[in-house]
């Protein structure tokens, strides 16, 4: 871990301003991913701005009937929130399927959106990795890639996005609300928030330097059966091989988002459109353009089978 200076921010605007003015500054909230990476010098901020005391920990109903979730709401609290449990159960389910109780007690809503990949070549600083060190190459391509992405990948990077929460947020069409160092506010649709690697895999989000996430806003609840199914190598405390967030509406339509397979939380309109046709059609649409390796090719079948399972359960409910 490189040395850094530390400050505890007292206002959102102040935090954003400080971040914009100090080169190498980073915000720290839960810290569960940032400190992990700082210890390995994958992240090397020179200045940490502790945003934990900015009061961004409220969950409020919006005038539009949606939900505004403060960026600092802890994963545990978001999953346990009564409105979330009632109206956005898929989000609750996604949250509690991630990490561990201890990590969820620290991890925040904003921080989770910024969670970085679990690619083992990203994590080993002696290995080539275009995401960590632009231009160094991709160790994962041609290497061990069982856990890595099959959608949205490029010749430069096949890293997967590891978040569960973000998959549910993607399903729910969340907006990411921010403030920048000049005090300008904007809302970024989650579809645009995470970037595909292309030939710049080190650029992961639409955030500008110094821009801070203040909240995540959900539109009005989507009615139907909310499910989040995560398939992994052990029963708990593991990253997804494949996860599927879904809402099955009473009229037979459905919407889907996927984790574990994409360079970012994955959702395609064609998969939603195929909802009435069943698992196979949804899988086919979702997997269009998939690019696999010999290690992660199974994820295609696993996506389909996870959908088969969800449809089977849905039929059993009906």
């Amino acid at each position: 871990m490189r040395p850094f200076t530390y400050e505890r921010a007292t206002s959102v605007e102040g935090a954003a301003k400080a971040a914009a003015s100090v080169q190498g500054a980073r915000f720290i909230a839960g810290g569960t991913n940032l400190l992990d990476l700082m210890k390995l010098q994958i992240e090397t901020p020179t200045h940490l701005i502790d945003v934990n005391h900015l009061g961004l920990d409220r969950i409020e109903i919006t005038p539009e009937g949606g939900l505004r979730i403060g960026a600092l709401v802890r994963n545990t609290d978001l999953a346990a929130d009564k409105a979330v449990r009632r109206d956005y159960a898929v989000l609750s389910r996604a949250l509690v399927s991630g990490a561990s109780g201890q990590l969820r007690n620290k991890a925040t809503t904003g921080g989770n959106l910024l969670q970085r990949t679990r690619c083992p070549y990203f994590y080993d600083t002696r290995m080539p990795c275009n995401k960590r060190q632009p231009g160094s190459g991709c160790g994962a391509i041609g290497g061990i890639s069982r856990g890595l992405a099959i959608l949205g990948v490029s010749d430069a990077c096949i890293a997967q996005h590891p978040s569960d929460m973000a998959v549910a947020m993607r399903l729910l069409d969340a907006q990411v609300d921010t403030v920048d160092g000049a005090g300008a506010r904007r809302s970024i649709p989650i579809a645009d928030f995470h970037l595909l690697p292309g030939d710049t895999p080190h650029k992961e989000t639409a955030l500008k330097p110094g821009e801070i996430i203040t909240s995540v806003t959900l539109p009005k609840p989507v009615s139907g059966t909310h499910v989040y199914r995560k398939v992994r190598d052990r029963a708990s405390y593991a990253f997804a091989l494949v996860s599927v967030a879904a809402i099955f509406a009473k009229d037979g339509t459905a919407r889907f988002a996927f984790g574990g397979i994409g360079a970012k939380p994955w959702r395609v309109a064609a998969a939603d459109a195929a909802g009435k046709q069943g698992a196979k059609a949804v899988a086919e649409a979702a997997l269009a353009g998939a690019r696999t390796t010999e290690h992660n090719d199974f994820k295609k079948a696993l996506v389909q089978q996870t959908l088969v399972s969800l449809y089977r359960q849905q039929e059993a409910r009906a």
Partner: protein
Amino acid sequence: MPSDHVTRRGILRGAALAAAAGPALSPAHAAEPAKASKGTPMTPVELTVNGREVHLQLDPRTSLLDALREHLHLTGTKKGCDHGQCGACTVIVEGRRINSCLTLAVMHDGESVTTIEGLGTPDRLHPMQKAFIVHDGYQCGYCTPGQICSAVAVLDEIKAGVPSHVTPDLDEVALSDAELRERMSGNICRCAAYPNIIAAMKDVAGEAKA
């Protein structure tokens, strides 16, 4: 949660403030002056650890785990992976269990920390500690303090109605073996005393089988 004390101290920190602060007063370091490597400005941190207020001068890079182990000599909290992958470092901060390895001590300035040493001592065991002995809920003992801190917090979480991955109905949280196993999964025990740990927790929760 944030007290006046914290608000008062919620200001820019850095070399200037460190220079103005007094020497460390923790028992572990009472005999030595605040250590200050050249080039790394120390930051004052006040914690209430197991009910006792402690004052530290820390390199801002110091994790809460290392502050406990290396500075306060509270070595009951263990370092198994230092990356949030094992749970051996679990402590209870402001009533919640967290991995003390993945948080900086300075981020907890003004907060209250309970470690395994604060739950009980060999002469005055916490009920969960006693139950771990009775049910042989450990072998090598290295993950044990983290398991026990987690176990204590898990029973509270269930009481508070916090749902888990295996909660059948998100609005009806109840104690069950499956709930305990899922919630304890962030505490790895390679010796694998798992069923014994669950038995200890059920015992404490008053759910032990007759």
